[in-house]
């Protein structure tokens, strides 16, 4: 399978970052993947143009429940970035969902242009293919 986009993983869990990255690299070991345990750091890197995606479109895999800046805040801040920057990215939520997650928050986050879909953790092979499909379609709509 050939993948023509790169990935940024944002998750405060070290293990989660590692697992998602490995899952992706198993499909294509040359895939460009970078992980961030802090949404703040990721936002800075994206804003300041320090992420070299090798001119590929970047899919951001975003966890929701994180300390300091959670996924919801990240998306809000991301939407404030230059349109020129934003257009190179799409966001897929990869998170635990449960009763503590407010359905209104989920509905709101899905209403953002850049947020493509939600996939519930833990990641499995099947979910991974679903994820890649969604990522693919997120580029095609552009």
């Amino acid at each position, binding site marked *: 399978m050939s993948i023509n986009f790169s990935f940024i993983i944002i998750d405060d*869990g070290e293990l*989660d970052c590692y*697992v998602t990255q*490995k899952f992706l690299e198993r499909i294509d070991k040359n895939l460009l993947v970078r992980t961030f345990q802090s949404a703040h750091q990721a936002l800075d890197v994206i804003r300041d143009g320090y992420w070299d995606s090798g001119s590929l479109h970047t899919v951001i895999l975003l966890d929701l429940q994180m300390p300091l800046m959670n996924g919801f805040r990240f998306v809000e801040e991301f939407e404030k970035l230059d349109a020129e920057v934003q257009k190179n990215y799409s966001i897929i939520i990869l998170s635990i969902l449960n009763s*503590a*997650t407010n359905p209104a928050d989920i509905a709101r986050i899905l209403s953002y242009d850049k947020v493509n879909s939600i996939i519930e*953790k833990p*990641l*499995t092979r099947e979910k991974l293919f679903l994820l890649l499909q969604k990522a693919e379609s997120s580029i095609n709509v552009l």
Partner: protein
Amino acid sequence: MAEKIKILYVDDEPDNLFGFKASLRFDYHILTAINTPQAIAFLDNNPDIRVVFCDQRMPEKTGVEFFEQIRISHPHPVRILLTAYTDVESIIDAINKGNIYRYVKKPWIESDIISAIFEANKFYMANSMLAVKNDELQKAYDELNKFAYSVSHDIRGPLSGILGAINLACEIDDVEEMKEMLFLMGKSLKKLDTYILSMHDYYSLQRGELNVSEIDFNRLIEDIKPLYTVISKTDNVTFNIDISQDSVFRSDPVPLKLIFNNLLSNAFKYQDKKSIAKSVDLSIEVRENKALINITDTGIGILGSHIGEIFNLFYRANFQEVGSGFGLYNVKSALLKLNGQIEVNSVMHQGTTFKITIPSI
């Protein structure tokens, strides 16, 4: 007897006010007002007024109108109307608009007033008890909400991470990769375990009684020191301890240890990895029935905007995975139990100092 019950009496007749005060002032704290603006001023300045008596017939405002007004602006005192007129209309108004607790007929006799005060005070106490319980309940609900979040983030989080890792492990053959993953899985589990231990601390602090004994700080620190001596060696952080105690200090050793353990583990955990001269200084001084404790580190520091929140349950001022958001909340609860105080000073990239004062019990 406990403090006297504070009572406000409003009437436009100075003689009535005088008579009321004269006959009741030995048993109650009586305030009298000749008109409603004066009465409002009393209510503003005396939030502990429990019962308000008011005459119905006054020139600028009726008693019912006055009650209708303070029912909203000062809802706590119990309202009792004094009146010589017992027409049904005014009684209905008094009940519906003024929401009065009782009616006392004029001219009043002392026993009527005393029994009205007695009942009104009971009613007031029950209401304030309810308000206190309500606040406690609200606080418990708020914490429960935070718990729900925390359960999903700090318990389900590591579990789903491990599940994901198992799913991945089924597909890989490389032993080195497998080992790396096992290492991370172990770390995740340890974090979960720490979280559950802190949760236990949280409960024991909320519920347990104090178990006071004589504290020898040298021995207490000797008990908890070994763990930090190891971290100090492996992470290359100098650990300085300075204890001076020449008098008896009495306290509960369990919350004391909890305070030391949480603050010390934070001091070692949040060291600046890039820094060359890393240190943690612990000083304890017992004097004048007080223990003064300072814990200073050369760590990453806490951002000024976060300082106010670090003692809140589940607040984490750092994205690193190590925190559970329990530690400093538990420190605060332990200090509350021991009647102690804590102060924080922090400079980003230079370090943090916690200053604690605990009285001997």
